[in-house]
């Protein structure tokens, strides 16, 4: 299924959707990615992975929460040369 670009990310509902790749055999699937939350999905996946309304509530994210995700490992200070 070569689908058109969806309007929002299934996970965070941002509109920053990009085409990551088309299937090597033309017209079978498209991989999309969200530039905000970095979720990626294939157009042929079950609807719970492609449709924002079907996406499981437990995995949904808000763009404003991304900055609060824990950082690991921490970034060390630069050494003085």
């Amino acid at each position: 299924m070569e689908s058109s670009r969806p309007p929002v990310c299934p996970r965070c509902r941002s509109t920053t959707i990009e085409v990551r790749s088309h299937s090597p055999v033309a017209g079978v699937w498209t991989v999309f990615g969200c530039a905000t939350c970095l979720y990626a999905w294939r157009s042929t996946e079950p609807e719970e992975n492609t449709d924002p309304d079907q996406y499981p509530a437990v995995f949904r994210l808000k763009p404003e929460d991304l900055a609060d995700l824990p950082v690991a490992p921490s970034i060390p200070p630069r050494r003085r040369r």
Partner: protein
Amino acid sequence: MSAFQSLREFLQRLEAEQQLLRVTEEVSLEPDLAAAACALAQLGETSPAIHFDRIKGYQNARVVMNVHGSWPNHALALGLDKHTSLRDQFFEFVRRYQQYPGGLERVTSAPWQELVVERDVNLFDLMPLFRLNRGDGGFYLDKACTVSRDPDDWDNDDVENVGIYRIQVKGRNRLGIQTVPQHDIAIHLAHAEARGEDLPVAIAVGNEPVITLVGAMPILYDQLEYKMAAALQGQPYRCVKTGKGLDVPWGSEYVLEGRVLAGQREPEGPFGEFPGYYSGGHRYPVIEIDRVSHCKDPIYDSVYVGKPWTELDFLQAMTTCAPLYVQVHESFPEVVAVNALYTHGLVVIVSTKTRFGGFAKSVGMRVLTTPHGLGYAKIVIVVDADVDPFDLKQVMWALSVKVNPAGDVLILPNLSENLLDPACQPGGMVHKMIIDATTPIAPDSRGDYGQELDTPPQTDAWRQKLGALMNDLQKGAR
């Protein structure tokens, strides 16, 4: 013992041993591949590896899963007979582990150098990437060996690192990698970032089976995984240097070369993890891939991670038992065997001789003070030397009759634990428990253990005689 040089060579062996299943129907990347691998794990402990070569959207992609996903496959990976018992696999694994270090055989060319992509790298094109579990944030490389060197000690081979870290493919050549602070690559990255430099990495996908086991093994920082793989294989490990000077297995299917970007962290996850729960999301380091090399018609190897048991539990089995046994045995030579097979050794069963009352509890405490104990071992069951810790029927017998909870259960409050253990409260902290299921001996006089049953005379002889007769009976029925 026979060593395999490549994934292909091992797959041939699995096929010859009826341990490789070829699926000939056309399959979808989702949900077929993960569903098939998950189903295989439900079919028992002798499941074959599974090979797909008709994948929707690709001309000629090939995917293999469950390569390590059974005790017969695990035995074959070590060059043993596929019927080798779990207990015998343990003792052989420990014996070879203690042969460290083996040697390196550095050669100048490898089959994976045949095809090279240096411009417009698109991993979605080059590899049949797919989602494993519905809540995963994307498609993951979850069985690849990531190789790095210490930027502060670049030419020291012994601190070169080969590790299996989960890697999320976010863009055509952009990856996220989980390098928690306890991982050796995190030391390399910290040194690179302190210098303000990117960290060069090589990511090897589709490897012979032993380096995959070793990449998941908690060996010391200054122990080189290739030298451990050589010890386990019984011959020098064959590898090739990349242009950046990173050693890569000769037998890999794909080699991705790139850089962990200094000072960058991006959203990563969630990913369904080994405890049977999702990891949640984090801001993790980022890799950019500059170059991909691969064999002609490469085979993509992936491991399904789900609620235990899955292939992952076989990968984390002996690789956890052996270091734990060696470390505890150094302090307590009375220890006979260690079973840390369950959920990466969150539960550990130790069999030991006991010298005096209370001895087993000390053995249990030693388990909790090993490196594995700091982050994984949470429940330790100690049994007598004549109880096989790999035979859960025997372990349950010991628990049933040797334990008086009044004096045999120790709860140790607020010890350190892996963040991924969902029982933690708060994250990284948990109570731990030692259960002493050994027979009390002096001066511990609790219970009445004077009249244990044994077997009737001639039982051993009858077992041999009847075993042969039963074999004949089954042959006659075929």
